[in-house]
């Protein structure tokens, strides 16, 4: 009953159910609608466009594989962002471990924790596609400088417009914790772009 109500109110969940029942065009519609937001979301978490695309592909493969067990208990958007968050954080954790390993074992090219290492540059090709100006770069750095929980909560709220409840479900914490993460994230972003705020360029 609840599933039926959910599919009536959430067209994307209805599309997923249609795909579950064998309608492959329904999945194509979901791909068309979500591939850009998912690539963007992952890019904001891992800060590398090539990796973001690879991980986005992994997200859609997981959605595809999970079709048989899919139950429209939550909004489809919340469900797919949950998968995307898990995939992104797993990758971010792997990179962090690699950095730790390289740092401790003195491998070549391990420069320590300078800003360029924490916030890797996406490269000239991706740069041309993505960055439209200095302010964009500053904001991107400010987001990348956030602790993991603050970054995920802030990005899900600010860019993906998920509700506090949905973000809490994704992050497996309380709504109050999500609000606190977002508030702290705002404070950190403010610090990061303070020169621009003071110059009145924002």
């Amino acid at each position, binding site marked *: 009953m609840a599933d039926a109500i959910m599919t009536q109110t959430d067209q994307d969940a209805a599309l997923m159910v249609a795909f579950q029942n064998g309608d492959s065009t329904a999945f194509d519609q979901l791909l068309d609608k979500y591939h850009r937001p998912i690539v963007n979301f992952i890019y904001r978490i891992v800060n590398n466009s090539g990796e973001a695309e690879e991980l986005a592909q992994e997200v859609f493969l997981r959605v595809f594989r999970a079709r048989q067990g899919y139950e429209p208990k939550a909004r489809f958007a919340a469900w797919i962002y949950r998968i995307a968050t898990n995939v992104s954080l797993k990758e971010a954790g792997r990179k962090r471990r690699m950095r730790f390993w390289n740092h401790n074992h003195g491998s070549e090219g391990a420069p320590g924790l300078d800003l360029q290492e924490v916030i890797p540059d996406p490269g000239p090709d991706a740069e041309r596609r993505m960055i439209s100006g200095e302010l964009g770069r500053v904001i991107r750095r400010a987001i990348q400088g956030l602790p993991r929980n603050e970054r995920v909560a802030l990005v899900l709220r600010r860019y993906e417009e998920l509700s506090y409840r949905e973000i809490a479900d994704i992050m497996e914490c309380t709504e109050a914790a999500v609000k606190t993460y977002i508030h*702290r994230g705002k404070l950190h972003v403010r610090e990061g772009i303070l020169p621009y705020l003071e110059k009145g360029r*924002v």
Partner: protein
Amino acid sequence: MRCYRARGLLRRKAAESLSDSQERRLEEHLGACLACSKLTEEIERAWAALGHLPTVEPSADFLPRLKARLREEDTSSRQGTGPVRSWRWVAVAACVLLAAVFAARFETGRQNPSPEERTAVSARDSNVPDEQFLQDLEEILQQSDVDFLSAYDVWPAVPQDAKDRGTRKAGEADGSKKKERPS
């Protein structure tokens, strides 16, 4: 109200856990404190500034590549030829094959037992010794260095004096224990 308390209330306001009286006090402070009111304004502007982050356009081959991978995944799941599935089937097939080989060897062994096994089985299964059994037994005994039959027939009898010695020793041991026991 001090500024650090106002900052704490701002954090609690973000978590929507302010009481009415706390909210009123915070508003009063923000109306009077330039630094705190500037901070709240900058936080709002920073939040608005996040909207200036440019979006990423996925590369042109993103969707074709993804759809190719999905087709491959679909074919694998239909035919059960995915890498994981095929490895599982190989493992299962190997186990079945091994079990079949062991079963066949076991069955062959049961059908063609060695002379020793045949002797043992016939002796166990039948109380009436047949000719073959007796011949095999004689053959085994002849091959052996130990004279089993003489050992069985000529069982050494215990001499009478040895029996007496055993009884006396037992009595002495019993008496010595009694002596050691305190009165």
